[in-house]
């Protein structure tokens, strides 16, 4: 392999790695705050891409139906819960948060249907539309079993992913999409053509990671999220509701997933079921970071991107095998570094 090819592969790898970084950080964020390993997270990213593609061709995106369906389900569940608790006063706010807020972007989309929108507007609307999905799923699927073990939550999460992929096919259809490039411009650096798009991708990953860091460090809500992740009981004892921080984590992570979907859609063809695989690649990164450490997670995700890029050059058939087998040495290293026996009795 010449150094030119290596450089091109590396740049490609960093670009896709940067996209995985966003998803991987989202994984860690949701897991740290809610203990849920949110497997359908990659699907959120794919759905954003599909929504964006629909808007480009002036079609109504399937996301509208999906969000409306979930909003109605969540509302019914929450109203039932309110009534059972005898808390009639909570119903108006339930209707507002679970029904009205998620349906606002749907309604916007409905009225804007058929109009030609500029690229930033399309992106903004797509992002807005996918944001409610994960928090609503949290309410419908995970909150009733919030006290369950991580393993049970993970199992439910896997099942949820398959349900969501099936729904994805119903709402989006089987066609693959690829959106317009963000920009056609490219720069020459050290004798190589590097597209501006690559810079935008890497830049967005950096900017959004930095924004998240700032949010955690500087705002009270960010601190409350960290507190929940560090010590759930401690958080409850100062009056932080895990359900609330959980919703916040889902919303924030969805922003990251949405951005990653927007960034990836001009680069790769996206199908309704593409989310799982790039979700999983990001996942490898998250596991490298032990699901708790953001910087190591980001490095891990970058590593996966670069490895994938080189692997597809060596042997495109075994690309996936190579990437997922990477986990084994990582896990081996982790298992060797497990120190004195820690107790994890579960009943």
């Amino acid at each position, binding site marked *: 392999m010449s150094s030119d090819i290596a450089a091109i592969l590396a740049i490609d790898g960093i670009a896709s790695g940067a996209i995985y970084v966003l998803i991987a950080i989202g994984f860690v964020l949701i897991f740290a705050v809610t203990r849920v390993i949110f497997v359908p997270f990659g699907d959120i990213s794919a759905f954003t891409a599909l929504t964006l593609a629909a808007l480009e061709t002036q079609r109504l995106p399937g996301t509208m139906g999906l969000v409306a369906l979930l909003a109605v389900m969540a509302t019914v569940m929450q109203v039932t819960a309110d009534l059972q608790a005898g808390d009639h006063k909570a119903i108006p706010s339930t209707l507002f948060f679970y029904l009205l807020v998620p349906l606002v972007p749907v309604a916007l989309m409905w009225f804007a249907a058929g109009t030609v929108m500029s690229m930033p507007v399309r992106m903004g609307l797509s992002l807005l539309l996918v944001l409610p999905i994960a928090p609503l799923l949290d309410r419908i699927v995970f909150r009733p079993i919030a006290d369950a073990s991580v393993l049970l939550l993970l199992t439910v999460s896997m099942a949820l992913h398959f349900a969501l992929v099936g729904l994805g096919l119903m709402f989006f259809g089987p066609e693959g999409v690829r959106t317009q490039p963000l920009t056609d411009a490219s720069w020459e650096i050290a004798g190589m053509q590097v597209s501006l798009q690559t810079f935008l991708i890497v830049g967005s990953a950096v900017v959004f990671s930095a924004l998240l860091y700032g949010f955690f460090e500087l705002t009270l809500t960010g601190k409350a999220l960290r507190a929940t992740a560090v010590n759930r009981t401690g958080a409850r004892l100062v009056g932080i509701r895990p359900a609330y921080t959980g919703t916040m984590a889902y919303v924030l992570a969805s922003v990251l997933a949405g951005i990653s979907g927007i960034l990836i859609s001009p680069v790769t063809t996206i199908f309704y079921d593409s989310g799982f695989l790039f979700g999983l690649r990001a996942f490898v990164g998250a596991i490298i970071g032990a699901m708790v450490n953001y910087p190591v997670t980001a490095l891990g995700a970058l590593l996966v991107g670069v490895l994938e890029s080189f692997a597809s050059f060596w042997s495109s058939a075994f690309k996936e095998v190579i990437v997922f087998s990477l986990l084994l040495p990582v896990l081996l290293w982790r298992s060797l570094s497990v120190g004195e026996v820690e*107790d994890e009795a579960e009943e």
Partner: protein
Amino acid sequence: MSKIQFRYLTLAALLLLVTSPLYLNPFSMTLLNYIGVYGLVALGLVLLTGIGGMMSFGQAAFVGIGAYAGAWASALQGYSPWVGLMLAIVLSCSVALFLGAITLRLGGHFLALSTVAWGLSIFFLFGNLDGLGNYNGIANVPPISIGPLKLVASWQMFYLIWAIVLLALLASRNLLDSRSGRAMRALRGGNLLVESLGINAFATRLATFVMAALFAGLSGWLYAHLNRFVSPAPFEVHVGIDYLMMAMVGGATELIGAFIGSALVTLTKNSIQDYLPLIAKGASGQLEIVVFSIVFIVLLQRWRGGLISISSHLLPSPHHEIDGQVAPLSRRPLPHRDETLLTVDQVERRFGGLVAVDKVSFTLKAGEILGLIGPNGAGKSTMFNLLTGALRPNSGQVVFQGRDITHSPQRTIAKAGIARTFQHVKIRPKMTLLDNVLLGTHPRTRSGFFNGAFRLDRKEEAQARAEALRQLQRVGLGDKPFELAGNLPLGNQRVLEIARALAADPVLLVLDEPAAGLRRQEKQALAELLQSLRSENLTILLVEHDMEFVMGLVDRIVVMNFGCKICEGLPADVRQDPHVQDAYLGGLV
């Protein structure tokens, strides 16, 4: 349901099964075959998940290994399917051994995630290996033949499949009721408990994992010859979830739950395929998955224990005849009275900047009861963990019967003759009193997985049971050996732990706050028990907070405060020591 009733019911069910080709049509027979084939995988998952507490999303990959091994050997290489069977067994077990060795030290969800990773890797491997027909798969897999007889018809396969299934079920049942099986059932109690009993937790996990893979590989081999065609699709990760679902829907804590789940899932899937298109026009296979996943989620939300949890009271309670006349298990020689048994020399343990145990030394003589006391947070529990190997000291030395155990793992220390109890009782609530105490005999017995599964361990098992019953009687719990341990009140649970410790034939018994949470009479009974044990020449180290309890019972006392030993001596002297009064007895005057 009584044992006799249950036996008749089982017999009737077996008869119904064996004669099913007489009254079921070929299509139903085929369904029954698949129920058996899938149930076998689920059975492995019950052992792995429900019993051993390890979650795997990747079982489909092992099914694939078995199926491809069978198809490759018979269809592509022209060997007999039985060669394929051997290959399937060897391959699935060795891959499991390799993957297990790498991943099974990981905690709960990391382990589960790793199964997704290798599950995918193996799946992609099937699709990309030229020798295995890529994504097209391997067609024309020959039927299995027994001598000149080719098993082609579904009823013929039925007998082979269900013979294997019943054999696997029987072997698993036997296993769970044996030494190694009890070790598997203890796994969910946590490493600390398992290792303190002298059981190698990792090896037990690994064996369980390999067994689950073996069942999956067998199932794959059967699948290849039942379906007569193999392609990668049925070995995807989402099929792995289907298997998990079978185990969980049926009830992952009972072996039979695997087949209840397999039947339920297979039949429901079949009817969804029949009826869904009638309800929703043009519905695709994807909708089937959606409906299925939603049903699964709702089931997990409502019944975490699966269907068997609703009907488990119908199963007969476990019961064994115990032969009191068998030769007792061999005992280790007890040391002579007043011989130095344990020497703790300048032991130190730090946590970050905090010195929890600060250069503490004391010795323990054979046949005495030594009390280690001190206020909460004095470092007693840390000291306790250092002695039993749950923690390692930063410096200093611990010598037990002339042997340096400073850096020995818990398991080795347990085998050397130090048995412990726990401050927060660690018993297995869903196991009987007898089985809990039998766990204690683990280091004194030898039978492995194979002997357990095929009942080659009966003599030793009878000896162990007699020993366990003897220990239960010794502590006064001998009247209901088949009661579930979780039904005991706290006081008796502590006593049960002592019986379990005694079953290990220890030289030294180390008790962590045995009187905490006990009522007055219970404390008295406990004190009497400990005194009678001392009269039998057993040495006891008691870590305790309750002064009243300690003072009347022990021979000598060591007092700790802020990680240091502040005093040592006879109870009466310690009581008079001003340092002790200051530090321990609430001296804030």
